[in-house]
């Protein structure tokens, strides 16, 4: 018996809903086998992974805190991805945004000024945009591959950060740790509750999600960009310029990543340190695709990935699972999720032969 893959005439709306459920089910089944094989009770492990982290207020706060930059950056990236503008270097733009914002926060003459936070916001955005402008210029003018340029600029950014926090910006009272002095209070987002790290920067993410939805679904520029992404020849046919999409795609995603970097410095970290981001810029690429480049899909994707991180840490602590196992689990879920998307556009069935007399 052989199976055959057939393209669907219209994308299946049933599968749009069912695909994530199928993926979750497959992950649960396969991971249960894996957990059982290494001697852990699958149910307990899954509970510790997915449910336990959300049972405490602190867990919820951490969940949203981690989801926020992922969602924020993914919104920016998705705008570019829809137009085939592949910004892989949001991590670098985040770092430069954090550097620029922290620079303002540390060296602004009046550390009490209420303008400090807005200025840092602008500096973070400008920093991220500036970092993304380089690949945008190279792609639009010289047709350089932006995947390579954005990625390589990420290494430059992290090394620049390292240089600053080990060198000129290092806190003289910081016991030689590679980090700057703490930012003044006026440079910090306020907390909802002093006990938890979640802060008001999450509203930026909320606004970004709505703005992204509006841009992609309602604005003409967003429409032009999606034409360029889905059918470049049709964009040329209609006379939509590619360079506009390249600039906008990279500047928006760079600016947004820069804001995310600023929000890290002005939020949970309170200073600039060598480890400003646990890889948000890269993880946001996954979030953008899990969310199918759609604003509300990205929110779900960001929440899921954030939970995977939290759960991964939780089972390492509470059940002593090796970190490799949590990575395998995370990879498995993402793999099944993206693979089952295939079912939206294709069906798998048995080939029908011309049978006699049926």
């Amino acid at each position, binding site marked *: 018996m052989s199976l055959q893959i057939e393209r*669907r*005439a*219209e*994308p299946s709306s049933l599968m749009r809903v069912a695909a994530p459920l199928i993926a979750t089910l497959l992950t649960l089944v396969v991971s249960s086998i894996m957990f059982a094989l290494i001697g852990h009770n699958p149910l307990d492990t899954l509970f510790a992974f997915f449910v336990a982290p959300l049972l405490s207020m602190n867990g919820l706060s951490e969940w949203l805190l981690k989801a926020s930059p992922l969602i924020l950056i993914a919104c920016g990236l998705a705008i570019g991805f829809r137009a085939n503008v592949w910004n892989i270097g949001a991590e670098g733009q985040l770092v430069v945004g954090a550097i620029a914002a922290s620079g303002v926060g540390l060296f602004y003459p009046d550390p009490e000024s209420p303008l400090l936070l807005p200025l840092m916001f602008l500096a973070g955005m400008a920093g991220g945009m500036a970092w993304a402008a380089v690949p945008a210029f190279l792609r639009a003018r010289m047709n350089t591959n932006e995947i390579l340029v954005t990625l390589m600029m990420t290494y430059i950014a992290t090394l620049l950060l390292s240089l600053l926090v080990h060198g000129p910006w290092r806190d003289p009272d910081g016991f030689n740790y590679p980090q700057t002095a703490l930012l003044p209070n006026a440079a910090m987002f306020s907390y909802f509750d002093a006990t938890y790290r979640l802060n008001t920067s999450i509203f930026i993410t909320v606004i970004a999600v709505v703005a992204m939805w509006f841009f992609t679904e*309602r*604005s*003409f*520029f967003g*429409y032009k960009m*999606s*034409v360029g992404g*889905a*059918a470049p*020849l*049709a964009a*040329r*046919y*209609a*006379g*939509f*310029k590619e360079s506009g999409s390249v600039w906008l795609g990279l500047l928006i995603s760079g600016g947004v990543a820069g804001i995310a970097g600023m929000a890290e410095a002005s939020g949970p970290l309170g200073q600039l340190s060598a480890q400003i981001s646990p890889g948000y810029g890269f993880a946001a690429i996954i979030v953008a695709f899990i969310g199918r480049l759609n604003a509300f899909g990205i929110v779900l994707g960001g929440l899921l990935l954030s939970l995977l991180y939290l759960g991964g840490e939780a089972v390492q602590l509470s059940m002593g699972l090796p970190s490799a196992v949590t990575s395998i689990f995370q990879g498995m879920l993402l793999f099944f999720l993206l693979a089952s998307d295939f079912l939206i556009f294709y069906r798998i069935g048995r*080939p*029908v*032969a*011309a*049978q*006699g*007399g*049926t």
Partner: protein
Amino acid sequence: MNPRLELRDISKRYPGVVANDQVSLSVMPGEIHAVLGENGAGKSTLMKIIYGAIGADEGEMVFDGTPIAAHGPAVSRALGIEMVYQHFALFESVSVVENIALCVSGPFDLAGLSVQVRDVSEKYGLPIDPHRLVHDLSVGERQRVEIVRCLLQDPKLLILDEPTSVLTPQAVAKLFETLRQLASEGCSLLYISHKLDEVQALCDTATVLRNGRVTGTAEPKKSTPTKLARMMVGADLPETHHGKAITSGKPKLSVKGLMTSADDQFGIGLKNISFDVFGGEIVGIAGVSGNGQAELVSCLSGETPTKTAHVITLDGADVGQMDAGHRRRLGLAFVPEERLGRGAVPPHHLSDNAMLTGHRLGMVKNGMINRGAANAYASDIMQKYNVKANGHEAVASSLSGGNLQKFIVGREIELAPHVLIVSQPTWGVDVGAAAFVRQALIDLSRSGAAVLVVSEELDELFEICDRLLVICQGEISPSVDRADTDVEEIGLLMTGLNTPSSVAPSGGISR
């Protein structure tokens, strides 16, 4: 005598459509049997079922008296069923004999095979040099390769899917001789077409399909085109009506000395092309595909801006260096040959696709999309041009080729352009709708617009155009009035043999 092939109640359903509904037909040995039908009538599906490329949901196939139990392309080959597809499946960078060797079972013996190729091609009047590279061949020659490839298998049943769509009239006549010779030797032929005159000239019997169902069988030689067309369309064919062309004093579109160099080794450079199109007239560009039409059209539309601005003027303005959007603002509209991916964005809804060029008609305010206006425009086109689709929410890739073509043609005409350029206006469009599209083009021109039609279908050009130009090897012939010429003369110009101005080398049909 048993029929060579008998189909009994073949049905095939796809989500949303019944492609074949209880189709029965039978072909005798040595019979040339036409399968007639509009586009989307289910002809190609039926042929693929016969060949075994796809399976039928229901029904039975009997070959030479034996039912075929489990079908597939391999079974077809064993039985002697061969198929020449409409779009050739040849590797351009290797030679003819190497292409053929890929499809022939048995040991890999190029030398022996080229002898066979030569023999078969001489026997059937299909001259072909087995050692030439495929990319050097004209379309007609490529088709010969495909046919020779089938003939080497000693077919008992040969399926030809619209084989003449890319041939000059002379090449068509030649092909028909070959096919008659084959039939006289006992090979059965299934000939798929929507061209009534060809079917009348060639075929003994015809099965007519409409909406996946057999609507009748006929003996084309004893029938009339009107009767056959009625069976195909289900109604009498609308005729196009011409008013007299009243042309504008100044050309609306003017090309002066347009030259380009070929993009790649398979491309064609344009050589000093000049012509004018006046408002109120339709000018046709005839030619065998691959002679520079694609390059010319892309220069005219603005997708490939030219090096100097003044070689193309639109309403007197030099537009050569403007992009497509800029030219559209000046009143140009354009229907490209490729519908999916160029004329329409495949995964987008029809209303989004209406916006692709229609956005200038008040669908965008302050950078924001007015969905209502886009939906209304799409629905309006669908209704006016009889586009069969699942509402304006249907994605472009779900439409049949003909329906999408009607949508794109409608979208461009409704822009009320000063100049409309159309590539293959009715390519893949059914007979009834083709007549409608042609009438719409005539009406547009009579309202004062300049219309330029690039087509490989001579009948169509003769039906709608006021003047004709012929493109061959990147050169364009002087224009001739339709009334002063005939298919024969244009056909010769297309092959580049009879142009006083051209220096086409001898060697048959040029690419």
